């Protein structure tokens, strides 16, 4: 049986097709301003027996297409569990929110934490400050890792951090040092969320768009003194999980 999962995120949409439990295709596009049309074009030409939607746009998609839905929390747990069953604590930092999901040995969610309405420490935050510092987003982490020193960034609110960055630029500070400081503040926040769980006994996985950022990854491992597992494509894990759940349901 061929099953599809679609993850309608705030920044990107992913589609994953699984056949008999194996991932056979995945596609990705920016969400843009018309997520329903973008989703339809991603699915165009794909054949599947069942489809399950997840992500923040799942209800819009459900209204239009009548597709059943699952939360990204359950989807990411199912996806990561299939990829790496030893992982029992998942950090997911996406475009507009961050989550920590704890799973049991069968991949069932046993507890989760999620940021509140503010976008502090998410992909959107990184995008904004990268732009202020004049770095392309995909090079932001690499550039931050080249910094010779780090600066303290106090504000985690996207708007306030942006003004703080502007004033540091105005003081003549090295922009890589500022970038490293920003990455540190994101990691501190993520670690704060992770610490609400039992970290000593956990195997940690990291997904979402921000997991592509090598600086966030390295700082997380330094801070936690642990390996943080990132799948080959950290953005498709929720869609993969949704496809697997579609197959199971």
């Amino acid at each position, binding site marked *: 049986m061929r099953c599809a999962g679609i993850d309608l995120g705030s920044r990107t949409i992913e589609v994953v097709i699984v056949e008999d439990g194996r991932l056979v295709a995945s596609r990705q596009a920016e969400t843009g301003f018309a997520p329903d049309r973008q989703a339809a074009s991603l699915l165009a030409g794909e054949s599947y027996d069942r489809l399950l939607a997840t992500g*923040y746009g799942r209800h819009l998609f459900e209204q239009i297409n009548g597709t059943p839905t699952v*939360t990204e*929390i*359950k989807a990411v747990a199912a996806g990561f569990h299939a990829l790496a069953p030893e992982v029992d604590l998942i950090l997911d930092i996406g475009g507009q*929110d961050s989550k920590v999901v704890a799973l049991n040995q069968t991949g*069932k969610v046993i507890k*989760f934490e*999620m940021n*509140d*309405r503010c976008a502090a420490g998410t992909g959107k935050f990184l995008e904004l400050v990268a732009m202020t510092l004049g770095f392309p987003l995909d090079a932001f982490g690499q550039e931050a890792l080249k910094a010779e020193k780090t600066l303290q960034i106090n504000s985690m609110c996207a708007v306030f951090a942006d003004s703080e960055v502007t004033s540091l630029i105005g003081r003549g500070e090295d922009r890589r040092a500022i970038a490293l400081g920003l990455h540190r503040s994101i990691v501190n926040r993520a670690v704060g969320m992770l610490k609400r769980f039992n970290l000593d006994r956990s195997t940690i996985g990291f997904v979402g768009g921000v997991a592509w950022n090598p600086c966030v990854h390295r700082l997380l491992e330094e801070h936690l003194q642990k390996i943080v597992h990132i799948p080959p494509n950290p953005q498709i894990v929720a869609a993969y999980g949704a496809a697997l759940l579609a197959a199971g349901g």
Partner: protein
Amino acid sequence: MSSDYTAMWQELGLDLEAHDALLEALSSSYQDIFLSQKNRPQGMQYLDFVMSEVHGLRIKELLDARRAGRPVVGSFCVFVPEEIILAADGIHVGLCAGAEFGTEEVEKILPRNTCALIKSAFGFKLSRVCPFIEAADMVVGENTCDGKKKSYEQLGELLPNLYVMDLPQQKTAAGKRLLREEYVRFLHAMEELSGITIDAKRLRRGVELVNAKRAALARLNRLRSSRPSPISGLDALLINQVSFYDDPVRFTGQINSLCDELEARIARQEGVVAGTTPRVLLSGCPMAVPNWKIPMLIERSGAVVVGEESCVGERGSRNLTDASGATVDALLDAIVERYFAIDCAVFTPNREREQHVVEMVQAYQADGVIHYGLQFCQPYLIESMPMEQRLTDQGITTLRIETDYSMEDLGQLQTRIEAFVEMLG
């Protein structure tokens, strides 16, 4: 509204334009949230009628009663003893405090970081859209949390008739003495307001009326413990909310007939949802009309709310008062006993609330608990953390939510609540 109440609202000094806008919003969210539900008990038609006339016929009744010499008393808290108000032939109504209204005006006199409930009460007063507060001969404030007790200083400036009641914060002998002294003072204030001397017979009658109302609510709660649930959590919350507005005798009769209907449903094993539906106990801050956001999200996520551990819920109606006392003093003692047992988070320590939640999870066959805290409501927010720990230790799946009356976090909350329901399923 079935009749034109414009003249009445004008007489009360309401801002007609703002009030129309409020009624329109209320009516459309009522349609969307309540009338769209499936398998509702027939008895809910009464509640639908009450809600459709909440600013109309009910206000007319209050004004007619006032003309007949009965004082109308508005309050914000379950510590205000309705028994004493009824003993003086008074009418007790809960005041509007469940929606964001007039926020800009409120923030001129209260800090932005004040809880939504307090801001809402001020918003309704400042915007002149709450006929209950305008129709009240006396408004009773009570010194529960710091936010309320300090904001009553400001509210007193806006109202000609604010009466502030002090409350204990510790369940000690001295605390109980304070509560008794305050209830005696309130009894005299009611006597003065009504011109009636409250004797034992009158006070006993007040106790019996309120006991009957609480017993009907307790009966409803017992029926909700059945699986499948015979009534939605939204409808049950509405009943609890209306218990603060409606005439107690009429309300008691209507809720008892609704319970008869629910008993028949249970006998047929007919539920408002399937028996496999995840069952949620809602615990925490009170939800005044029209604060329906969280139960709506829970029930739209495929779960059913089977109980409310809240002042608008079981905490407010749990215990009855011993009505056997022969004197005013003896009856007052019994009233104090009853209210002193309320496990409001303003008490310190307040560990019995955790025990009550654990007991309710068992009694209502709940699969999990959602703890609802209003942003900036320190007493409940601070209790939410040890509460979560206690419940988790007992193997009870728990979700803590902190929010206000705005809709801006709807998407976030929906994801959290859906994920929680998935965990229960």
